[in-house]
């Protein structure tokens, strides 16, 4: 069967040789338009978050998921785009987000109390259109609750955003969107950085010196899937998901100076 198909392909290719060089090869695949995630190593790894697609960021708590999301929001709002954050558990901290560079005036924040509210709000926002980035934050929602979200919801989201310039980012503890996501990133925490050496007091130290200060954390981001394939200086769309376990980078995030005494209001910093 396979050899017959190959022979047929060869016959068609030879018949069209005078007109088309390689009739079974896609000559012009659509270019994937991406936006920077705001964290250099992640941008280098992924090429940025694709527009008109669903991007999934997942990992356990403290893995740097929110930092990556906030960086992406800061990047988009810095480019004067309007973004929306659907916060399924009302966990967004405006003070630290503003300190991280998010223009709060460009951010529409939807504070939900349930998964259902978050999904309906996201649906309405996608239908409304015009947003540069829509983030659906299930970061604190129990993984079991998000697991119950029917697959057709993710398919609907994917279909709804695919012809728009909107980046749809979903933050979760586990990957749920399956093949509906064009880019899937898994994050995990590598280490927490303190102002003094972590290992100085042994393997399981109790660092109770008053001199310890939180400096930041180091996270590992692994690209689980991507629909984009790098070709020269551009990303092109490919039908088959890339699946590799060696696509990982480490990135560091730094604690915001004066984190314990952040104050809002114009002209305060």
């Amino acid at each position, binding site marked *: 069967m396979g050899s017959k198909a190959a022979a047929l392909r060869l016959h068609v290719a030879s018949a069209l040789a005078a007109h088309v060089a390689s009739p079974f090869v896609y000559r012009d695949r659509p270019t994937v338009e991406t936006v920077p995630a705001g964290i250099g190593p992640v941008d280098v790894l992924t090429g940025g978050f694709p527009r008109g697609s669903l991007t999934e960021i997942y990992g356990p708590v403290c893995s740097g998921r929110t930092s990556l999301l906030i960086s992406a929001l800061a990047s988009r709002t810095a480019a004067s785009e309007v973004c929306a954050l659907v916060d399924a558990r009302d*966990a967004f901290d405006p003070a630290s987000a503003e300190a991280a*560079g998010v223009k709060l005036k460009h951010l529409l924040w939807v504070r939900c109390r349930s998964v259902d509210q978050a999904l309906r*709000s996201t649906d309405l926002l996608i239908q409304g*259109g015009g947003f540069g980035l829509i983030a659906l934050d299930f970061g604190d929602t129990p993984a079991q609750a998000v697991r119950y979200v029917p697959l057709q919801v993710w398919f609907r989201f994917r279909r709804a955003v695919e012809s728009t*310039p909107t980046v749809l980012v979903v933050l979760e503890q586990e990957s749920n969107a399956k093949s509906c996501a064009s880019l899937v990133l898994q994050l995990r925490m590598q280490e927490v950085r303190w102002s003094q050496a972590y290992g100085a007091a042994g393997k399981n*130290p109790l*660092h109770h010196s008053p001199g310890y200060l939180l400096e930041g954390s180091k996270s590992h981001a692994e690209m689980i899937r991507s629909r984009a394939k790098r070709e020269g200086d551009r990303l092109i769309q490919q039908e088959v998901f890339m699946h590799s376990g060696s696509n990982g980078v480490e990135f560091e995030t730094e604690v915001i100076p004066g984190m314990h005494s952040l104050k809002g*209001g114009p002209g305060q910093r």
Partner: protein
Amino acid sequence: MRFASIFVPNFMLQAVLRTEPALCECALALVDGNPPLCSVVAINEKAARAGVELGMTKMNAAQFAGLQMRPRSQLQEKIAHAVLLDIGWAVSPRIEDTTQDTIVLDLSGLTHLFGEEKDIGAHLAQRSSECGLFSNVAIASNVDTTRIAARGFKGITVIPPRQESKCLGELPVSVLCPSVETVETLSRWGVHTCAAFADLPVLQLSERLGQEGVRLHALARGATSRSLAIAEPSHSFEEEMELDDPVEELDPASFLLGRLLDQLCARLAARSLAAASLRVRFELQPFFENALDVHAETVHRASPPGVYENELQLPIPVRDSKMLLKLLRLRLQSSPPGAPIRKIVLQAESARPRATQGGLFLPSFPDPEKLELTIARIANVVGEGNIGSPSLIDSYRPGEFQMRRFLAPLEAAGAGRKRGSVAPPEGEQKSVQSSMSFRIFRPPVPATLELHAERPVRVAFQGLRGQVLTASGPWRTSGDWWREDPWQQDEWDLEIHFQSPSNGRNAGAAGHPDCGLYRFYYDVLRGSWFVRGIYD
């Protein structure tokens, strides 16, 4: 100078028909007066053909089969008059509010905008019919002639300069609005038309009819000369509707609101304006006042009993009636009136419509009108106060912020994005820090901490137990001691290694990692520990 006049014949009837257009098809009579002395004050052509006469009592009129009777509505007449003024202001800035059914416009310079005078007349008549008022339009060289011609001639009439006397000649004397005694006198003389009246000598007329005779004589010849008494344009638009039967459900109320909004938006469009805010006011059935009071206390304290009020502040001026109806419906769904509606009042504050120039290389923004609808729909799902733009306030109290109404920025400050680029623009990357973000627990989670030498060593919260690996703190903050709700807290950043729970499952499987970086605080005033949030 040239003037135009718009006259709405049978004004009382047209004011009612404007809100109930279905009545055009049947014989209609308006009745007025105190029962039982109600009499017919206006009738349409079909009613006249059926034999109904003005002045007939309501009891007599009720004997005509198929005759629809409606009470005269001064409210609708007031609104119809406002509509008439709006039609005038849509064409000329200088108009005179002559009577309730007549306005006069100054046409100076309008031929450059609308073409010939006949075209201006046609334009006025068309606008008038679009607003539900079928009117006569007359154009002449003086104010009084145009007013009289509009009352006397049907349709559009253009009187050339110095032809006033000739044109008005065929009209009956009654169009000059003489007093009853003068009409009787002229009738005895056999003077029935303006031409016959204009032929009378002025001096003798003055001797017999006095100053009124002289004034009417000048009117009949089209020889008066006076300037317009200019009316000031209003920026508030109001539409009202009284209901015969109170409406309980939202759907039929929406239907009526839609009709009023259509009329309101047509008036706004006629003036090239849009609604900046919309105020809806319902007068409710008195039987339900008690039930309403409970609701009014929580939602609309300012409203008097039996009245429901709600205001829709629009981020940009809108005059799309469908859009306004959707927004209004969503608002009414979230805070319903709570009793049957017997009167609807819609009031719009006007503003200039938004004019923006888009750009191919500018970032896309949500369409402000669509965004407002999206926000209203989401607010219906999550609650009014749970959607908006966060704004920090001038306070060191942890977690202090306020939600503001989200307004899409209309101007694009940034440059256009580069399509299809892999690497982000350099400037964009530099402007963003890789900062550690924080997730807040709302409300804070109560926790139990074990201290050793005044420093945390073990924690327990939400069924999780862990050992503190690294602790940084305390960060002491306090404030608002002058208020009733002061705060004083010691904050700690704790890196925690979680232990396996007693049921054998490990912490990671329960949705928590083995390690975590949390912020705890000790509320000094309450003497308790809480988890504020998590670094993520």
